[in-house]
């Protein structure tokens, strides 16, 4: 494992930002740390990156303990925060030269040129960073993070405020970095992003890790959902289902027909009840089908469960 977090806790005064968190990220793996704002994602990534010290527990990053050798851990991590955080009066070349000096990069000019070309910034290398668009600034931050060719990448909400096209470019880039056998920890609250590029998802809430696993597995852990398509009076269908004790979670229209949706832990019993109630009510059922649960639904269910 490139990142091995063991029972990590961090306290800020009386506030426990992270409590007994454990997670692992292997080489060539993207793990998404998902959670609402203030859940502890950024704190976790800053501890793993050797920026903050843990209150208890430890994280072994590229074979080094963040508790014992934070400086050497920092040399093995590349961090992309949610805000690019650039010195905007500098040109990209000078900016990267500065960080190359801090990271002891050998042949910095060659590396800077290579990264600028890789990220499509070759032509603006000598332009002031203040003149860059938001997307270009984020790419500059990624160039800074990759400057010393780190085995670990910590991406904290990297797609914040990017347009869809730029977000897609960024995703492609992250996936290409995984192919270079880097361990990538992606902190995000963008479930779509996590679903698209992460191999595994770790859900964190109120400083605790509440669930962990591949996205497909997490989706299966949520209550199964079903939807029925009705030809006819939607309101009558709703009344019939409610009369059978089935709580409708969502409704809509599909191809001119009313759709109604519910979740259940006992599909055989609930769906039989639903069909009987609808048919007894003189309604025509076009279809009854299981719903593919999205990661968002699974995530919301997991968060609600952890807070219950």
């Amino acid at each position, binding site marked *: 494992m490139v990142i091995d977090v063991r029972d990590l806790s961090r306290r*800020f005064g009386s506030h426990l930002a992270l409590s007994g968190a454990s997670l692992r990220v292997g080489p060539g793996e993207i793990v998404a740390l998902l959670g609402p704002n203030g859940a502890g994602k950024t704190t976790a990534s*800053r501890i793993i990156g050797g920026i903050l010290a843990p209150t208890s527990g430890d994280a072994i990053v590229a074979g080094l303990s963040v508790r014992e050798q934070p400086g050497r851990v920092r*040399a093995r991590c590349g*961090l992309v*925060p949610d805000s690019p955080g650039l010195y905007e009066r500098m040109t990209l070349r*000078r900016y990267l030269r500065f960080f190359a000096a801090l990271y002891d990069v050998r042949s910095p000019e060659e590396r800077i040129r290579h990264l600028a070309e890789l990220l499509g910034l070759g032509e603006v290398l000598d332009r002031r960073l203040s003149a860059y668009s938001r997307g270009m600034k984020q790419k500059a931050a990624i160039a800074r993070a990759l400057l010393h060719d780190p085995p670990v990448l910590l991406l904290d909400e990297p797609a914040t405020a990017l347009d869809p096209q730029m977000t897609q470019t960024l995703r492609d880039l992250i996936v290409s970095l995984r192919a270079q056998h880097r361990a990538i920890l992606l902190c995000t609250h963008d479930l779509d992003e996590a679903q698209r590029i992460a191999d595994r998802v770790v859900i964190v809430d109120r400083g605790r890790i509440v669930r962990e696993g591949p996205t497909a597995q997490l989706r299966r852990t949520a209550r199964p959902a079903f939807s029925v398509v009705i030809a006819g009076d939607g309101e009558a269908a709703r009344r019939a289902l409610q009369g059978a004790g089935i709580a409708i979670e969502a409704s809509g229209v599909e191809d001119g027909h009313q759709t109604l949706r519910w979740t259940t832990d006992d599909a055989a019993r609930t769906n039989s009840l639903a069909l009987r109630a609808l048919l007894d009510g003189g309604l025509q059922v076009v279809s009854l089908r299981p719903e593919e649960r999205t990661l968002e639904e699974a995530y919301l269910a997991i968060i609600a469960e952890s807070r219950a």
Partner: protein
Amino acid sequence: MRKAWAVAWREMVDTFSDRGSLLRSLFFAGLPVLLLLVNRGGRPNATLILVFAVQAALLPAASAVNAAAGSFAGEKEAQTLIPLLAAPIRDLDIVAGKFAAAAVPATALSWVAIAVYDVTARVLYGPALVATALPATLLFGLAILSFLVVLTLTSVVMVASARVATQRAAQQIGGFVIAGFAIAFGGLIGGILGSDMRDTLLIAVPLGLLVLDVVALELARRLWDREEAVARA
């Protein structure tokens, strides 16, 4: 200390690539010379030459406040502090680099201002009068004094900068420190001019400042805390 120098150089280039900041510093450095030129029609006056010389030494020193205020608070506001703290650089190198970035230009500007002022005064009033009003020992004392004032201002404002949220708040604290110095030096000039203890005062004041600097630097070292900076960033 190679990384400390990299931090210092970046900050100095950044500060002086802001034209407003550069012009402000040059204005304060040149103000005493300007005052001399405005007064050249009047009767040559040793007191005036001395008062303007103290200003030439201390006004540029105050430019350290702006740079020191921006050292941490400015980076927090611009959200540039986290990438810096994420780099493999020791806390001591960060603090030393930022300290040098604020203190070195202010000290250099102050010394250049004293030299330019001295030359201008000699041209305007003649070497004999200026040698009496500003003997070499006094000029040297003023240079040391400006250096010590820069050290004090930089360390106090840097500590404030690391612990407040905005650059403006750090500058305001720096403003209070400058006001304290202004009152102290007003009294000092009065003391030098009006007392026969001029030589004693000229030794006692720098010594007092030196003690203050040692305390302020130690405070800066103790109070600057990476954890605190990250938590507030």
